[in-house]
């Protein structure tokens, strides 16, 4: 259940941004999660909803975008999407491949109100 720990970190980042941007409430948080992060969307949503209570993001909607795992073959150079965690080159069959995307764990957008105007 590392979703809970990651959401704790997410709220640490949200707090920092909210303070810097003088946000008074947050309506929407967007995150980007790579396929290698083993995040279960329902658990992440559950953890987010549990953590947002009594914060300025109490009414916030969470939007998750999942990034497929991508790899480059170290033998023939082919770039391919890793399906079902099969890290084998579809072109030449080599198992010597480098993962180039899929480890993302990013906050990409926050929508909120600020008290500056």
């Amino acid at each position, binding site marked *: *259940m*590392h979703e809970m*720990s*990651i959401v704790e*970190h*997410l709220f*640490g*980042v949200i707090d920092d*941004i909210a303070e810097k*941007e003088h946000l008074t409430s947050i309506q929407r948080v967007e*995150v*980007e999660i790579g396929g*290698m*992060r*083993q995040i279960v969307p329902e658990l992440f949503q559950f953890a987010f909803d549990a953590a947002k209570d009594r914060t300025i993001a109490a009414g916030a909607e969470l939007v998750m975008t999942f990034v497929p795992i991508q790899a480059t073959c170290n033998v023939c150079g082919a770039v391919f999407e890793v399906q079902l*965690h*099969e*890290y*084998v080159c579809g072109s030449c069959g*080599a*198992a*010597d*491949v480098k*993962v180039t995307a899929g480890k993302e*764990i*990013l*906050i*990409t*957008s*926050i*929508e*909120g*109100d*600020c008290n500056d105007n």
Partner: protein
Amino acid sequence: MIIELRQDILVANQKMVSVVKERLAQEKVLMLNIIGSPGAGKTSLLEATLAGLSERFRVAIIEADVETKRDSERLERFGVPLYHINTGGMCHLESDIILSSLDQMDLAATDIVIIENVGNLICPADFDIGEHAKIAVSSVPEGDDKPSKYPVLFREAEAVVLNKTDLVPYTNFSVENFTTDLRRINGTVPLFELSATGGDGVQVWLDWLIKRVELSQSENG
């Protein structure tokens, strides 16, 4: 207002990872992160490793458990520096905890730090703690489907240990299935089939480990 950004959610952990890595590089210390299920034999592997390695290298151990100090007690007889962490329910280690353990160590008098992570195949794989290599430990009684079911750990591992091979005749475990699945996930990872308590295969693992330490020491000049 909408704030667009691309900020790593685990930034706080990654900051501490940088400090950990810097600290280790300064003192030319190799740090390994042992990850496996509860009961896979992580502590037994450590016992076999310490028995074979502690005269050659200066080893320090970080033992993490959700509860109890039993694993640390098992390792006390080796007389190596031992740092115990009770995570109190947390299913993995993070880099700030590792940093505070390193703070207590005499790193200048250490060649290798071996961390026994919390018994779990998912969460520890997702948190960088500043280690040079993750070592995945799986064991025969768990079944041969572990690489397929927990691919990320086996993908991220720099070495895989299959423990308790002496039990193969008493189970329906297929070493071939395990290996075939592992190769689909990580085609180049070295696999060590051994019995940490019986001793079979342990020397091959130790030889690899010794080379790994020497490689890291020569890279660090």
